[in-house]
């Protein structure tokens, strides 16, 4: 069985400050890892994914996440956040791109001016 723990349910930060959203997972098999973002009244949008290869993955809007196998973590970071980054962020794991996703409970990132 797989599980995902997002350690912070809410993270408030000021605009232009750095942020880290934490995600730990457990699995008995090799996994694929994902971060999805959900804006109010919308579905989930893929932010970035780790499938294999380089353990540091980046998104087009400045977020990055690092896969750490020894610590079973996949923390999401951004060096400088914007108001528009305010949203709910979900970490997810699966044993393959075409298998079910197991999600964490989400972290609400609130960026204040």
């Amino acid at each position, binding site marked *: 069985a797989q599980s*995902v723990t997002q350690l912070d349910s809410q993270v408030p930060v000021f605009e232009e400050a750095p942020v880290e959203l934490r995600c730990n997972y457990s699995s008995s098999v090799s996994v*694929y890892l*994902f971060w*999805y973002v959900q804006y109010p*009244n*919308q*579905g*989930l*949008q*893929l932010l970035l*994914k780790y*499938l294999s290869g380089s353990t540091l993955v980046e998104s087009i809007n400045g977020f990055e996440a690092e896969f750490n196998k020894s610590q079973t973590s996949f923390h999401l970071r951004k060096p400088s956040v914007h108001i528009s980054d305010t949203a709910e962020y*979900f970490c*997810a794991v699966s044993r393959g*791109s*075409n*298998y*079910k*996703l*197991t*999600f*964490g*409970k*989400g972290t609400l990132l609130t960026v204040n001016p």
Partner: protein
Amino acid sequence: DAGVTQSPTHLIKTRGQQVTLRCSPISGHKSVSWYQQVLGQGPQFIFQYYEKEERGRGNFPDRFSARQFPNYSSELNVNALLLGDSALYLCASSPGGNSNQPQHFGDGTRLSIL
């Protein structure tokens, strides 16, 4: 290209009724998955279909059923609705097979049970 489309966007039902939710995957995607997202929680896996066959089922009662059509669209049916079925129901599609492409989600159907 159109993304994953779901209908209806909102739905209000009463306890004991039945509901059908619909999903059209991204063109070329053969796999469709359904998730339930209760307020304040992460999505929970309900079903996955690939090439019209059920590939996986989450921990949901038999009141929940689904099917996939030859054009790869899908329906989720829920019978004997309970107050606890109130949630956002999300559909996701992916190419399936040996592809490494991740699942793409629709905007969901918000189901409210009175």
